């Protein structure tokens, strides 16, 4: 028995020994150098807002046009939802109506309340008209209703409605809806010389297949027209004296990525005022500001234009061929603080404008005119050679980052990033990279004290441009490499300085570039 127990103990011990085997991962180290990035950077790559152009001599110029205001007057010259009613009673106490007999033939003008405006004409962009008639007569009748001066392609809005017999107490109704998009309305009324007047006609004929009936003066028939949601895109008349406040808020995202000092020389920024409406106005720019959201600093643009009303003349011509009134205002070094304004490096451009229509009243005797695309526009235009000075101007951008570099698996152990650059800009660059975790905390950085040299330290010529060639190394130590798995973002920071021989101001070549090759030279730890 004891012998059997010994065998079992031996057997059990053997199994324990066999299952106690624990295997750590097989690993070894290798080194690899590979090109990771091969790209050419231009200012256009960094500035997606299309701010630059060629000045014709190969020099980069600032060239952009931004619309600060695009004011559509159709919102100010509108026809409100309106109901007009044309009622009719026969003039005699009573008379006999034979089948097929036309016994009502009435024309009437209706007045629109347009809140001070006196329109003689309106083009309808969209809207709806509902026509409703009521038959109080004891015989079916044919209602021929018409708005003779509401036309589309020269044809008046007109409908024939057959309505069943009704009573004075309970008239029979009939309605029809009409989409009046692209209709035009003549608001001069029956006389042809009035304003805000709309003519309507009503004809009623007894049913030819009906019976002979008696009609009295107490039988009131009516024709109701409901105008709803009319949008005007053309108008003529006097639009009234109106005051409108407008604001603008424009973003140029590029400026969110830069900080530091920039100075601009010989600038010329132009504000363009354009009026394509046939009306006069007074425009006052209450303020234009540049706000840097990083520093919280706002700089107000200073110029004689600011806070001083400008008279805006009317456009000329007709709706098929009109010439807008255009007035420009130049912002120059001697009349503005534009350098400080742009040097604030804010991405937000905002401001307020006050517009007054017809400040002098009805000076053109009802000849204000609004065309389909009439607007008052304020544009900011720049078209100037860029001569600037950068002192430690920092361009910073953040990108998503995702690298699984678990040390439990094959991973990047340590190494270096080698940047080989050919720079054709007279700007040197000092690059650094911060790795952020999911809470945006910096978990590690790589940087170098070496710079990408400015083209002023020229060592070669490419495409006619002086260029310098640089090689910069960034060490990636083992501690940071092991933390890369928790990095969720990478912040790329480029610190830039311009170089010139005299004033510190320099131009930039339009065809400038930085050809970039980034190599990774890594120790990789394989784990199986």
């Amino acid at each position: 028995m004891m012998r059997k127990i010994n065998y079992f103990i031996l057997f059990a011990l053997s199994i324990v020994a066999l299952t106690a085997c624990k295997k750590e991962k097989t690993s070894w180290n290798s080194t690899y150098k590979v090109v990771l990035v091969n790209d050419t950077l231009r200012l256009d790559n960094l500035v997606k807002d299309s701010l630059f152009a060629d000045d014709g001599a190969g020099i980069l110029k600032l060239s952009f046009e931004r619309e600060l205001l695009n004011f559509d007057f159709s919102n100010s010259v509108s026809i409100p939802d309106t109901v007009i009613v044309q009622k009719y009673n026969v003039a005699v106490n009573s008379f006999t109506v034979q089948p097929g007999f036309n016994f009502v033939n009435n024309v009437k003008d209706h007045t629109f309340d347009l809140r001070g405006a006196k329109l003689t004409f309106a083009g309808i962009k969209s809207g709806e008209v509902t026509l409703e008639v009521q038959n109080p007569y004891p015989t079916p009748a044919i209602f021929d209703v018409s708005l003779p001066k509401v036309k589309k392609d020269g044809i008046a809005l007109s409908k024939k409605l057959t309505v069943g017999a009704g009573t004075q107490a309970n008239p029979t109704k009939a309605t029809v809806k009409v989409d009046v998009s692209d209709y035009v309305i003549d608001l001069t009324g029956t006389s042809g010389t009035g304003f805000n007047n709309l003519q309507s006609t009503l004809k009623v004929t007894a049913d030819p297949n009906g019976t002979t009936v008696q009609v009295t003066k107490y039988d009131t028939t009516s024709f109701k027209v409901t105008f709803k949601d009319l949008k005007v895109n053309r108008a003529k008349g006097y639009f009234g004296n109106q005051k409108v406040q407008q604001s603008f808020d424009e973003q140029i995202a590029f400026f969110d990525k830069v900080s530091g000092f920039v100075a601009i020389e010989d600038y010329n920024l132009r504000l363009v005022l354009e009026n394509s409406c046939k009306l006069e106005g007074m425009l006052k720019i209450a303020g234009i500001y540049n706000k840097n959201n990083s520093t919280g600093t706002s700089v107000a643009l200073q110029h004689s234009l600011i806070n001083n009303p400008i008279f805006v003349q009317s456009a000329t011509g007709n709706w098929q061929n009109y010439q807008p009134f255009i007035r420009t205002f130049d912002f120059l070094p001697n009349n503005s603080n534009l350098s400080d304004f742009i040097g604030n490096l804010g991405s937000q451009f905002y401001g307020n404008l006050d517009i007054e229509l017809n400040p002098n009243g009805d000076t053109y005797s009802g000849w204000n005119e609004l065309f389909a695309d009439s607007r008052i526009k304020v544009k900011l235009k720049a078209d100037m050679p860029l001569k600037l000075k950068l002192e430690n101007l920092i361009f910073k951008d953040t990108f998503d980052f995702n690298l699984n570099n678990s040390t439990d698996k094959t991973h990047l152990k340590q190494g270096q990033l080698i940047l080989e650059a050919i720079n054709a800009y007279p700007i040197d660059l000092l690059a650094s990279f911060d790795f952020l975790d999911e809470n945006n905390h910096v978990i590690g950085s790589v940087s170098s004290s070496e710079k990408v040299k400015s083209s002023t330290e020229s060592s070669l010529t490419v495409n006619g441009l002086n260029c310098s060639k640089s090689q910069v190394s960034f060490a990636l130590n083992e501690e940071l490499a092991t933390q890369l798995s928790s990095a969720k973002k990478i912040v790329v920071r480029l610190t830039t300085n311009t170089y010139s021989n005299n004033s510190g101001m320099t131009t930039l070549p339009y065809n400038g570039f930085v050809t970039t090759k980034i190599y990774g030279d890594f120790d990789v730890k394989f784990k199986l």
Partner: protein
Amino acid sequence: MKIKYTLCFCLLLSFHGFGQRLFPTVIDTTKNTREINIDFSAEIASTALDNQILNRILFGGEISDKAISDNSNRQKLLNRGGSIVSGTIQYTDLKTNLFKHEKLGFGVQYGYDQIASISYSDHLFNLAAKGNKDFVGSTADISSTTIRNFAFQKIGFGIILKPTKSSLFLNVVGMSNYFKGGIGNGSIRQSESLDTVTITANGNFAQPNSQTYLKGMGLSLDFNYNIPINFFKNDHAILQAQVRNLGVVYVDKGVKHYRVDSTYNYTGFSFEQLFNGGLTNGNLLDTLGIKREKNSKWVALPFYVQLSKAVNEEYEGKFQSLFGLRVYPVASYRPLVYVGADYKPIANLHLGLMASYGGFSTFRGTFYLQYKTPHFGFGVGVDNIVGSVYKKGLGQTYNIQLICRF
């Protein structure tokens, strides 16, 4: 007592591993027993990697730069290697008459098998083990690369023929790991400045879609047929025919297949690709010319066939001859032939010495020891004598067997 302690020592020395069936099989004629049999086997072998590397692959740990340098020098144009790890715990009952048939016993077993194999060029070894700097301005040839790994467990029930101990087991198989791939013609060309890498490849790769531990289920057969024969001067001998793991696995979520037959010129990524989401798995595969092909559902198990002359426990002489042939239908595995002799110095003890050629390696020497009593038996063996004691040997194989009868 001394023997027991020696046995314990031998076992504990070899507990690092593994073991599978003792190599070769010793067949006795005990018929009326119940038996628990545990086999473990671990083999790692190569035509060009020595134990400095293989030991680290087998047991884990860091491969030193010196080991990589030593092995780099011995790589040939095309090299092979592989590993087979398997273990089985089997209960057999020869006391019970299955189906009331006095010649039939039964058994149940649980086993684990893993076979991994690789064929590779010397250039690929240097690329993987040392890095790419040896190939600056030149071309690395990675043609004829194959890689394959298959791991599965099985649980089965079998019928055993008592007189000869021939058996047939039907197993339910669970596949836990599978991938295979290869490159027919392939090269990696690097420019002098390392700014251009040209990859030409004609290859394929397959792996299951499922990320779960159990990736597929299937059925397999283990067949063992012992044939008594007369061998020289009418001595009784036993010819053993074995087929193991003959079966298929159904992969419910399918096996995804990738194929590439293109040349890709890599010159680095643009900032747009790196930073603005221009580089996704989908378009990276497209860029590299890698096409995803239709899923397949069925995977054949890596079965093997062995024909051998087994050791006959009933043989009365001290020496018996041994020989056999083992075949795995795996590209990196050459048919293995072996020949040797079994020596029985005392009752119940067998010592053996054999020479083999093929498999994942070339020539190897085998030594084994088996001791059996009516209630307990054990065996240990090494299929690569040189590799077991010499770090520059080309692999190691250890077998261990424990038997408990009651």
